[in-house]
Each structure stands twice: as C-alpha cells, then as structure tokens.
C-alpha cells in the first residue's frame, strides 16, 4: 500500500491508528468505501510508529494524535508531517477518578495517584492536577513531567503507568488520572470525575488527521475527514462512548 509514484489513481488508502482509535476508523469505513475506494485500517500498538510509518510512506494518513504531539514529533524527529485540519475533528478530556473517595478534599498526605506514563497524557494529567490545586508546576513546561513539579503540598505519590493499566488498578490507588476514552472503555462513567481538565486544554488536544507534507495525500485526508464529519459518526460516538468523546463538527 505504498503511496509513492502512483501512475493510475490510487484507490486503496491506508490509515494508521492506535488501538484507541481503531474502532472509530472502522466505523467510517463504510462511508469512505465508496466510488471504488477502500480504507485499510492499520493498528499500531504504540504512539511513535504510526508517525514513522507515515513519514516513510508505508501508510497514507494517520489518525491517533493531537496537534501538539504532532508538532513535538516533527521537532524531535525531523519529520515533515502536518495536520490536515488543525482544529481537529474530535476531542476528549482528562479526569480524576476514584473508587475510594468522593471528593478531592479527602485526599490525604502521601496518597497514591496514578498518572499515565506517555508524554502527552502525563502532561495533561499534571496540568489538570495543577488546575485542581493539588500541585504546582514549573512555569512554561509545554509537556510537563514529574520533574517539573515544584510544589506538592500533600506529598502525593505519583505512580506512572501505562494509561491502559490505570483503570484495572484504580483500586490500588486513591485516585487515578485518565482520559475519558480510556475511562469509558474501562467501564468508568466519564462524568463521574472528581476533577476535570480545563475545557480550553481539552481543545488544545483535539485529535487531528495527519499527512506527510507535499505528497499529495491531502485528498485522502480530506475524504477521511469528510467521512468522520457525518451525523452517522456522531451518533456512533454518542452510543459507544457515552459522552467521552466530543465531536468538533
């Protein structure tokens, strides 16, 4: 499914996704697969290699990341990827969940707080914790890490783990920070959060469709975006994610 140097028009398009987004990509396949087009959904159990694959041309577009991560990736890896629509198509939010306490005020000194260990989720979680008055971060950290915590009055014990492990191990911590998609998939009502991310933060992390610049793949991104921005997809989100994912169209 290489996209380079196609003489006759290419109709088989490959989109790279991470496990979280594969159901969404599959949901728009029916809409996309018209006029002889075929959408291949390639799942990467990782957040780095879908971009690597896009850069090397092994896939045509990808759909799993937010604009900030994409920028960061370009900067660090010297890639030239771009969001097709910088505003993004969907967004979701980070929340603080617990099976043990009813309010953040109940947090005691030394309590365990699980946070994701991938950079963007971790950064969002920390910013959310700051926003809820639990910690203070160094000024100007774009994607903060534990090292950027300058004040931690309750001496919370932050445990970094795979974002997917946060839900199964929620009983082993006082509170867990996880985004709404993971929460809903893990059986937690996204609206039961004890604290949330600022809405403008969530907006910054809207998910975009990415392409490699100047390869002429924008038309596939456009087609894919169009397939996403339908009422059918909207109701799919509402039914499946129960408000965890907010469409931006």
């Amino acid at each position, binding site marked *: 499914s*290489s996209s380079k140097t196609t003489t006759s028009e290419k109709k088989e398009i490959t989109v*790279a996704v991470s*496990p*979280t987004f*594969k*159901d969404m990509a599959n949901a728009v396949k029916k809409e996309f697969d018209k006029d002889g087009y075929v959408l291949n959904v*390639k*799942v*990467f*159990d*990782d957040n*780095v*290699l*879908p971009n*690597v*694959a896009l850069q*090397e041309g*092994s*896939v045509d577009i990808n759909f799993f990341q937010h604009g900030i991560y994409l920028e960061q990736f370009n900067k660090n890896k010297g890639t030239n990827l771009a969001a097709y629509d910088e505003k993004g198509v969907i967004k979701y939010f980070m929340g603080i969940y617990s099976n043990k306490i009813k309010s953040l005020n109940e947090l005691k000194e030394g309590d365990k707080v699980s946070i994701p260990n991938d950079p963007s989720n971790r950064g969002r979680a920390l910013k959310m914790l700051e926003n809820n008055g639990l910690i203070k971060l160094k000024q100007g950290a774009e994607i903060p890490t534990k090292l950027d915590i300058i004040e931690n009055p309750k001496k919370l014990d932050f445990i970094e783990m795979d974002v*997917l492990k946060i*839900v199964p191990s929620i009983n082993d911590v006082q509170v867990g920070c996880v985004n709404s998609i993971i929460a809903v*998939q*893990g*059986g937690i009502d996204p609206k039961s959060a004890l604290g949330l991310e600022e809405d403008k933060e969530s907006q910054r992390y809207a998910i975009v469709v990415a392409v490699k610049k100047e390869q002429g793949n924008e038309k596939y991104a456009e087609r894919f975006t169009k397939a996403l921005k339908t009422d059918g997809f909207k109701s799919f989100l509402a039914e499946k994610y129960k408000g965890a994912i907010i469409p931006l169209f």
Partner: protein
Amino acid sequence: MSESIYELIHTIVIPEFSKTLYMVSVATVLSAIVGTVLAIVLIITHKEGLKPNNVVYQLLNTVINIIRSFPFIILIVAIIPLTRAIVGTSIGENAAIIPLTIAGAPFVARIIESSLREVDKELIEAVKSFGASNFQIIFKVMLPEAVPSVISGITLAIISILGSTAMAGVVGAGGLGAVAITYGYANFDNTIMYGTVCILIILVQVIQSLGNFLYKALK
C-alpha cells in the same frame, strides 16, 4: 466489537492467526539458522574449543549480550533503518520479522551453545583421532549428539518468539498476540482477550508437543 463472534473469527482471528504463524515460522527459521551459526562460532572460538580465538569469542559474546539487553520495543526502533534496508518498510509482518529474528537469534545461540558444550569431550577426541575436520566435528558429531537438547531449546525459543510477536503489534504487524492486546486489553474486551489467548495456548501446546515428539524420536 464483540457484536458478532462469527464475524470476528472470520475477519480477525483467522487472518491474524495466519499472520502469527507466518511471523513465528519465518522468524524461527531465521533465528535458528543465525543462532546456530553464532553458537557454532562461540563453541569453536571458546578457550577450550576447536580453534580458540579469544578476540572473536569475546566480541561475539558481547554483541549477543548487547542485543539481549535491549527491551524489545527499543530494539524495534533502534533497528528501523536496518529493517527498512532489508524489507523496504518498517511496518507490517515482514518488518516485524527482522527484530523478531534479531532478538531470537541470540537466544537460540545461547541455548545451542549450552547444548553443544555438554557433548562428551572424549567422543570429540575419538572423532578427531580419525582426522575429522572441525566442520565435520560440529556437523556430524556435536550437533547430532546434541540434537534432543537442541530441539527442546528451539521449542523454548519458538515459544519466546511467539511471545515477542505479541509486541510486534507496535509496528502494526498484527497477529494474534497483537489482537489480544489491541482489541482485547486496550479495548477492555475480555472475550477477545481471553479468546485469542486460548488460541495461543493451543498453538503453544501444539509447538510443545511437536518438540517433545521430535525429542523422543531422536533421543
């Protein structure tokens, strides 16, 4: 996703199962070949080997250890340029075979090395005594004598490689392990997770039985 088990089996399990088989078998064959060659070089160049050469031995020994030190995911990333040079892409089943082989070969090498080291010294001397070359000593005597333990070692290696294919999902290679992780674990879908694991269990059982059968036949 678990709406229709039948569809699931048809669209996911069967194709992913064949991908797994493909990756495991190609990677096993390659690992076995590379690993055996490495093991033989290790055995030959060892201090008490047929042609001691400490420089080669230490070098190889270190390289093997270095490769074995890489967490698999980092190995995958670290060798992307190599993978791309060999198979033209860094994603998909074929691309996964390269890191699987590179991780598998040192494992096989260690196992075969330790099997070969156990071959009776006196037997090797007897074979030397009628003028067998080092090549013949290895291939006509040491390997055949060590065959049962080599086989149980390779069985172990196949199962390890199968375990690694689950991680090969990070390069979009698919396969049953990846299904279990991406469709099951990441989707919190226990049916798929344990369903695919069951298939893996059967696969492992088959590999093990085959290994045992060969072991018995050759012992």
